[in-house]
């Protein structure tokens, strides 16, 4: 017989099995993987990824993401410029999709991860108005959708390369792809057990 406190039970992030928290080194009894082994610096990894992502997000917005070569004239458009252009042309749904995918979702994700990372260190938002586990789950679900813009650029660049008109990707495409990549890593590196709402 083992006596366990319910708060000591945790979920393996890999296979979802319920495990007993034994302190510093936890190996999942079902899949054998390490469960967040870096307990001494639990949030630092996530912080590092998040800051990298935010830094990469700056050039992603400043440089052109799409360069259109039309009859010898090169014209670049940034993420925000592309949204404005689409809005002016009257394709509101697509403008909204791009706006949500490349501006709203990344910024929202930065803010949520920021909030989560701060709130696990300092007593913040423990009044249970918004479930932090749900916030975290939401970032994991909506996060990948910001890749839409990168894929759109890749598709347009692959589709249109005539001698007169061609579209090539811009510097921002690289920066944006790296930014999204690092936000995803930051979300995965976040230790869900640090959220202690039930205490």
């Amino acid at each position: 017989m083992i006596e366990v406190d319910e708060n000591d039970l945790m979920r393996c992030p890999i296979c979802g099995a319920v495990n007993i928290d034994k302190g510093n080194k936890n190996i999942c009894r079902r899949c054998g993987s390490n469960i967040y082994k870096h307990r001494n610096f639990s949030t630092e990894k996530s912080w590092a990824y998040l800051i990298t992502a935010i830094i990469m997000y700056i050039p992603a917005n400043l440089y052109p993401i799409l360069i259109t070569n039309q009859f010898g004239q090169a014209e670049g458009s940034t993420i925000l410029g592309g949204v404005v252009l689409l809005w002016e042309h009257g394709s509101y749904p697509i403008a909204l999709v791009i706006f949500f995918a490349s501006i709203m979702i990344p910024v929202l994700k930065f803010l949520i991860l920021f909030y989560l990372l701060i709130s696990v260190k300092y007593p913040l938002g423990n009044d249970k108005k918004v479930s932090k586990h749900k916030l975290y789950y939401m970032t994991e679900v909506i996060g990948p959708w910001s890749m839409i813009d990168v894929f759109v650029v890749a598709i347009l660049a692959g589709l249109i390369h005539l001698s007169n008109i061609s579209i090539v990707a811009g510097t921002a495409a690289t920066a944006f792809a790296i930014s999204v990549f690092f936000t995803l890593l930051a979300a995965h590196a976040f230790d869900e057990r640090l959220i202690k709402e039930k205490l």
Partner: protein
Amino acid sequence: MKLENEDVLDRFVICHQCYTLHEEIPIKDGSHACCTGCGGILYRYDTRLVDHGLALSMTGLVFFVLANAFPLVEIELLGVGQFLTIPKTIFSLFASGFYIVGIICAFLIFIFPLMIFLINTLLFTLLKFRVGTKLSKELLVLLAYITPWSMSDIFLVSILVSLVKLIGYAQIHMGVAFWALMVFVLIDLYLVKYIHLSEIWMLRKRIILKEAIK
């Protein structure tokens, strides 16, 4: 809470959305159990999961090959026809010097979806013939690592978005691969997002127990 040994913990399940602890109860075949806290699905019970999984992962592979071998869209711009396939999307990024984006895209829309379906086919075959319990464990762990990085569904939406951008400039014809990709994404959504990995773990445990009784 008192437990006899660690294996009893298999009777419990923690909701992956809101982290509430639940005790598993037997449910009817084909139904699912929901979390009391957030309403998210905790687990399902499907006696024919092996057959369903094997059939779907093999179908998915066929459609994946179709989606990659044929053109996704064909456009006519200034009287010149152009077409696009998934490999061409990736190679054109490499050709224009965007190696990082090219590598990221190659993994997200080609390598990971292919790997997931190959692993699933192998996994369900192993479970079907009740062999290789060690290998099936490794495959399930690998699957958990790569599942969040497969983005075929997002790629499909991106195709639609970029086509809407092109409306008015060019004539657009949908290719065979577009419909194949659509079917592939539907199967991918069902197999990867709808069926939780923990259900396959539970299935694996049932099969091991059954073998042990024999």
